[in-house]
């Protein structure tokens, strides 16, 4: 462990986005709210009388306005298209305000049902659809802005402790029971409310008398590799030592969510979870480090549950410079630059990859940089496997492959063979999908058949998105240009290794029925000719390892 620590020290693979979203920090005058659905920060000054500054992911979602002070704002959220604003000021009702250009901005209100009912929170679930979560259940409404009224779509009653909402999958989890560990999942889809089988989160210790032990902060939802998981932080004692783990429950349509993965944190204290590029990032406040987990890398299975250790040693987020808070209203008077306090107690994380410091008025997106990870995974096969599943990893992969060819860092042939097989399996998959995409008309199945992903995009566009931008495809020309070209440049690579590597690559391509490009053959031929291995060359031709082609013959002339 000590060795691993020294190895990872100074390595930062998690970083904050370079251009954070700035907003008015929390103060006596200013309340700050964050809407997970639209990813907008609301800085409400004097309950709106002094103005509301909304900052979203892009310019279209930024807006400034004023509203009347009608009491303390508990929560504030725009509808999807920002045409209706919902404001909660009491536990009994939510107020609405039409926000289109010519609207009069007269508020209209919707109270929850029952005298003793209190609203815990609300979320927009679709265009003009909103759900109130109360301590007695959920109320699902349609907002009709023209009539300034709401129409009830569905009700569902039951005791609720707290709830978690995932806008990406339109799934809401409600906690019930005295311990808080009975979870009722609901899926919202075009005015319909689908109740999914409830399940129980198992607890390490059941307190007596019973009290709420599973809290909202311990539960997050994450879409990992297209599957929706519920991540539950769990502290328990192993051999007298308090330690924590994150249990992933796989949410299913027909059956209760199933415990499928356990991430071993091997530490205790406060944790927060983010998801970047299908990697689960677990921040640990006490040690000021973050850990990475990839549920497709390794893991030991006991037949039911797979256990994971951190992919690489924990490491702190890369240091970030900020300017000292300037005096409000005087943006010109910039303070001194200084290092941001990382893992501050004022940090709040939101899914999937948002980090907010309300005291400083910063909102960042978390990013993963792949280069530092390269040096932390020694097993090249595991490394390439990991990188192939990452976004924008192509150049990193090619760099790793190139290193594997160079004398000082040369990999063994079996490793090279496995790496080639991985690259070409992905390449083949891409070719297959490309063919499919050309042939098959995308079908829009019931969303319940494909519970996730659901972001409004159809499955096929997601797939094509995966193909183009997300998953790295290493084709022959990439290999030739960035990796195999070292054979020509570097004089001290043994020719036997060169031929063996090239043949291995050709074998790997052939195995998945990818036609080999002539320039690879040329490379083999030139190497063999250069070392006077004419008989070997002839044997290759004889067995059609080097297939005849026009460019080939001209090159051998």
């Amino acid at each position: 462990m000590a060795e691993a620590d020294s190895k990872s020290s100074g390595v930062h693979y998690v970083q904050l986005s370079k251009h954070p979203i700035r907003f008015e920090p929390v103060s006596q005058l200013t309340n700050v709210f964050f809407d997970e659905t639209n990813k907008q920060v609301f800085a409400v000054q004097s309950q709106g009388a002094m103005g509301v500054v909304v900052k979203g992911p892009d310019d279209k979602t930024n807006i400034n306005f004023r509203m009347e002070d009608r009491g303390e704002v508990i929560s504030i959220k725009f509808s999807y298209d920002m045409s209706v604003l919902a404001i909660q000021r009491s536990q009994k009702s939510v107020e609405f305000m039409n926000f289109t250009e010519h609207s009069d901005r007269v508020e209209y209100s919707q109270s929850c049902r029952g005298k003793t009912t209190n609203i815990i929170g609300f979320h927009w679930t679709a265009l003009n659809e909103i759900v109130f979560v109360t301590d007695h259940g959920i109320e699902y409404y349609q907002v009709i802005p023209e009539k300034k009224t709401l129409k009830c779509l569905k009700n569902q009653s039951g005791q609720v402790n707290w709830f978690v909402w995932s806008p990406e999958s339109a799934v809401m989890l409600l906690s019930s029971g005295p311990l808080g560990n009975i979870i009722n999942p609901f899926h919202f889809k075009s005015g319909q409310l689908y109740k999914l089988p409830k399940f129980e989160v198992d607890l390490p210790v059941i307190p007596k008398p019973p009290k709420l032990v599973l809290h909202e902060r311990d539960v997050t939802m994450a879409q990992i590799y297209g599957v929706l998981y519920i991540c539950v932080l769990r502290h328990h004692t192993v051999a007298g030592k308090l330690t924590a783990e994150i249990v992933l429950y796989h949410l299913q349509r027909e059956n209760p969510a199933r415990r499928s993965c356990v991430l071993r944190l091997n530490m205790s204290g406060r944790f927060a979870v983010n998801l970047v590029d299908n990697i689960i990032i677990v921040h640990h406040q006490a040690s000021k480090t973050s850990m990475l987990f990839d549920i497709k890398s390794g893991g030991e299975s006991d037949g039911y549950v797979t256990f994971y250790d951190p992919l690489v040693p924990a490491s702190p987020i890369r240091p970030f410079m900020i300017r000292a808070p300037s005096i409000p209203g005087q943006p010109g008077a910039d303070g001194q630059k200084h290092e941001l306090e990382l893992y501050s107690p004022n940090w709040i994380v939101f899914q999937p990859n948002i980090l907010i410091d309300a005291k400083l008025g910063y909102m960042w997106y978390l990013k993963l940089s792949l280069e530092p990870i390269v040096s932390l995974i020694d097993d090249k096969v595991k490394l390439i496997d990991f990188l192939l599943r990452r976004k924008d990893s192509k150049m990193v992969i090619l760099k790793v492959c190139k290193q594997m060819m160079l004398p000082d860092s040369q990999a063994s042939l079996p490793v090279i063979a496995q790496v080639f097989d991985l690259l070409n399996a992905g390449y083949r998959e891409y070719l297959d999908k490309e063919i499919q995409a050309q042939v098959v008309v995308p079908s829009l199945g019931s969303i319940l058949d494909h519970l996730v992903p659901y972001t409004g995009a159809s499955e096929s566009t997601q797939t094509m998105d995966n193909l183009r931008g997300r998953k790295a495809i290493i084709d022959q020309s990439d290999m030739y240009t960035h990796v195999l070209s070292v054979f020509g440049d570097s004089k001290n690579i043994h020719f036997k290794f060169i031929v063996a590597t090239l043949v291995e690559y050709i074998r790997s391509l052939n195995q998945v029925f990818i036609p080999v490009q002539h320039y690879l053959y040329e490379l083999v031929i030139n190497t063999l000719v250069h070392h006077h291995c004419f008989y070997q060359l002839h044997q290759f031709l004889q067995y059609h390892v080097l297939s005849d082609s026009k460019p080939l013959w001209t090159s051998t002339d």
Partner: protein
Amino acid sequence: MTGKSPEKTPVSLVNFFVFNSEYGPREGEEEKKILYYYPPNTELDKKIKDVGLCEAIIKFTETFSDNPCEAMHAQKTRQVFHQPEKDFWMVLTVSIPSSEKEKDGQSYMEFHEDDVQDSVFDAVLKQAYRMFKLFMGSFQHILEKGTAQNLKQRLDHFFSRYLQTLKLNQSDILDVYCGIHFLPLDKNTYLKIQCLINLLEATFLQVKYTAFLYNDQLVWSGLEQDDMRYMYKYLTTSLFPAYMEQELQGGSPYSSSTNVTGGPSTSHYGKFVTGPPSLTEPQNFGKIPRIFVNTGRPDEECHLLVYRALSATVCMLIEGSFQIPFDFFKSLDSFLGPQLSSLASDIGEQYARRPPSTAEPLFKYVYFNYMNLAQKTTIHADSNKKTAGSVSVPPDIMRLIGDINADISRSSNDDNETIARTQTGDYWVVGKKSDQREFYVVINQKNANLIEINEEVKKLCTSHFSNIFFLD
């Protein structure tokens, strides 16, 4: 010419000798010239006379031609000459088959001079030298390291056994070609074999060259063509048959289905053909032949370690200076055993899938490619072992093929075609050479005419050799 006389004597070895004229230039020292003479119990006087006569012939013919003397025809014998290295001559004398005939009530011996073909015995002689060189190194190499006495010992050691194995009576066109049977294989399996060999050589750096065979067919050779040609000959005519015989008799200390390495390795079918017969007896290293190859540099000495699993054989040429420790065999076994076993069964399956050749074809053929030494024959049931009766056409047809081959070889033209018909009219023989490829078809069709035969051959070319192009 019909060869139907049952009492015809076979071609047999009369004598065989190696000499160097420079070794005893003065009178009375002639004995020194003789490095090897067979039969060994010949009187010295006769040996000296035979050598002297050959010397004289060689000297005499030199005055007429720049090409050294190749063969001498006598009524009862045929002598072929070969100068493999400067001043070293090898001479092979064989008897001409004869049969008793009667004419006017008088019996007399008729000699069938045409039964013996220069090209065939020239090839036999050259092959004898190459086999010697494979196991002992070149004459020059031996002399560099030792004396003429050493050379004599080695010649004696080698040839006294080698000559016993010669089957002169069965020598034919295949000796002239001395070709290699390649295994037809799909690309993916071939690439897998390639990768295994690359990995083997990268893992065991002492392995300098590797060859891969399946049964008697070559798949891959890292050796140069000429080295492979004679090593292939040795493997397929000597080592493999002897090993198979031993296997059949159960002479092997451990049976093929169980592996008793004692280690934790899973069971596989691999074992050493040369090298330790059992990996549980660390004191028994078995026999590992040493051979000399010229792939990297001339006369490079190597251990020939042969490993086999099912029908697949890997021949590893290991640096001669390397003292192989017993653990080396063990790690080789655990590396090669499982992989080779699975490859071998892959290839076996591929073969099982292939449709068996149906009806007996109307024609038989011999094919040879000078470029890669690839050889194919349907005339010989078994091209390597040459068991008696394995040739499926009459001997005179074989000779006819040999004659056409000799004609074609003499011709300066690269492309050639000869069509011949036997006197009895039962057989047609078509010889064709195109580019570097040569092939002979024997068609047994009594009433065919030239045009029909020509058509037949064309059809054959397209159906059997479609991937090989003949320049028309």
